[in-house]
């Protein structure tokens, strides 16, 4: 019969892993790459916001109240969604990995709870505002675009909406599973 001591010696006898050659240097390079990626992401987000605002003024959207409102709702809801996602990524990065496992798990559970609230409350509101913005713009699209292009925009918007709802649903499912797993391993 095997005892735990047998298992322990089996564990200790396993081949020793090779320490990666220049492993710490590779880690430093990776950290620099992460920081650069972060800077690029910030740049892209900032540029997108400016381009959207610029576009708003370029087409004189402010001269037509209905068009302004439609564009404002669409662009605004997109920006808010991006900002929420960005803040969430920052929250995860700020998490204190040096805490003990029980405290860290509590933080992680709170993080996932916040994510689920975002998905159930903020996301549907944002999606609804985006859709309202689009609907408000439809008469102006119809007036200014060819019939074919107008149909294309309407059909593609419906398809995009269905695809987005599907992906958001999957994401909610994944995060709810994570939350369930975390809670179950805490109570075991």
């Amino acid at each position: 019969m095997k005892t735990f001591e047998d298992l322990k010696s089996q564990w200790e006898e396993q081949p020793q892993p090779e320490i990666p050659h220049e492993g710490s240097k590779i880690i430093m390079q990776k950290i620099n790459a992460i920081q650069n990626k972060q800077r690029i992401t910030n740049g892209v987000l900032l540029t997108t916001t400016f381009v959207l605002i610029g576009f708003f003024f370029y087409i004189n959207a402010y001269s037509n109240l209905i068009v302004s409102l439609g564009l404002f709702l669409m662009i605004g809801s997109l920006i808010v969604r991006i900002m929420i996602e960005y803040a969430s990524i920052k929250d995860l990065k700020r998490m204190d990995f040096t805490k003990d496992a029980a405290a860290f798990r509590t933080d992680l559970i709170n993080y996932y709870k916040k994510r689920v609230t975002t998905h159930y409350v903020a996301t549907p509101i944002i999606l609804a505002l985006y859709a309202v913005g689009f609907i408000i713009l439809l008469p102006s699209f119809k007036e200014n675009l060819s019939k074919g292009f107008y149909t294309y925009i309407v059909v593609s918007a419906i398809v995009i909406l269905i695809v987005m709802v599907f992906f958001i649903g999957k994401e909610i499912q994944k995060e709810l599973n994570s939350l369930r797993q975390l809670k179950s391993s805490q109570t075991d």
Partner: protein
Amino acid sequence: MTTQEKAFEEIYRTNYPKVYRLCQGYTNGDDAMSKDLAQEIFIKCWQKRQSFRNDAKVSTWIYRIAVNTCLLELRKKKTVPITDHLKHLEESEDSFSVSKELQLQQLYQCIGKLNTDNKTIILLELEGLPQKEIAEIMGLSHEAIRVRVHRIKNELTQCVEK
């Protein structure tokens, strides 16, 4: 190389094997996944270096980061089934090493059946950490760890016997 970088390299070289072995315990012995996880853990060690207090043990600090990183990262990834690791053994001719490896894989498989907390506790116990230090890493009392270690040891030996 700065003084901080030199100190980090020292920490890396001293602790890499333990961190890697701990990761293997979480990934059913998957080498590639364990290497990725170990790298992620050391990235966090560097990023959180300011939070290290000199009155704490370096190993406790690193193990905390390792356990928490594995908890977070493995949620996103699927662990490879143990049968995938066994394929290469079928081709090996050295029966002694094959038998050793099979025993080790069986141990990984049994560890894999435990819940996350129990898995962490037993991996730290297998690494030979004092129960007081395991308690500090887990955020549980020494007594709770003692009781749980006893229970998990029984569970593990029974599983390996099957």
